[in-house]
């Protein structure tokens, strides 16, 4: 009897011991929290450069010397990116209600809207008429929008994985951490774009 109990115990504990959780925050969420905080700091550094050249150095911002920013196109692009957050939220609420068709449609449209945003941004770079090394304003413009574009690319990679998994039947109303956490990242990317767009194109 005792031997059977011991062997049962041995059978129960296999693999390495459970990791020590020193934080009460759920580990995947803690990972995303720390990542987003660090990325906010990176954006902060780029915003510092932007406000330095405009406020401290008093440089003329666009339009100047025949160079201007395509504010209207960027506004439409902003609407596209904001829509992608709505479709992502729709996807997740659909999954929670076990509506798999709407979940898949939501994820696919989120991914496609994000991809459209990135392509419009790249097209803007091709036709904008100045390079990052031409003047400080150009460096700051490409720096800020380029940094954001890199974040969109990472977000699209995450969303692409989630969309593929969605179509393979993964995730359930009870278990969808893999949708929730990339979703939080995508909303962060969208919120950051609102601030970038306002600072660079409107102010």
């Amino acid at each position, binding site marked *: 009897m005792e031997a059977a109990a011991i062997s049962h115990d041995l059978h129960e504990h296999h693999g390495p011991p459970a990791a020590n959780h020193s934080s009460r925050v759920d580990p995947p969420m803690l990972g995303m929290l720390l990542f987003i905080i660090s990325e906010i700091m990176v954006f902060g550094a780029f915003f510092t450069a932007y406000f330095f050249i405009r406020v401290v150095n008093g440089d003329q911002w666009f339009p100047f010397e025949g160079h201007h920013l395509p504010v209207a196109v960027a506004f439409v692009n902003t609407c596209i990116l904001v829509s992608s957050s709505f479709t992502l939220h729709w996807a997740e609420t659909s999954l929670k209600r076990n509506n798999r068709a709407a979940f898949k449609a939501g994820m696919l449209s989120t991914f496609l809207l994000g991809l459209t945003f990135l392509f419009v941004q790249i097209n803007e770079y091709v036709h904008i008429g100045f390079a990052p090394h031409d003047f400080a304003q150009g460096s700051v413009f490409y720096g800020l929008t380029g940094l954001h574009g890199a974040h969109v690319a990472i977000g699209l990679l995450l969303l692409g994985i989630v969309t593929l998994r969605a179509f393979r039947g993964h995730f359930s109303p009870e278990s969808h951490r893999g949708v929730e956490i990339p979703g*939080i990242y995508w909303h962060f990317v969208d919120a950051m774009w609102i601030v970038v767009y306002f600072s660079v194109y409107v102010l």
Partner: protein
Amino acid sequence: MLNPLRSEGEAFRLLLWIIAIVVAIAVVVLAVRALT
């Protein structure tokens, strides 16, 4: 208090708040520019 790291829903609601605040600031800035 909205905690954007608690759930995707809260992150989405925070995004809506940020959009509302930025639009409000933009309206004020553009109005001041138009009037001066």
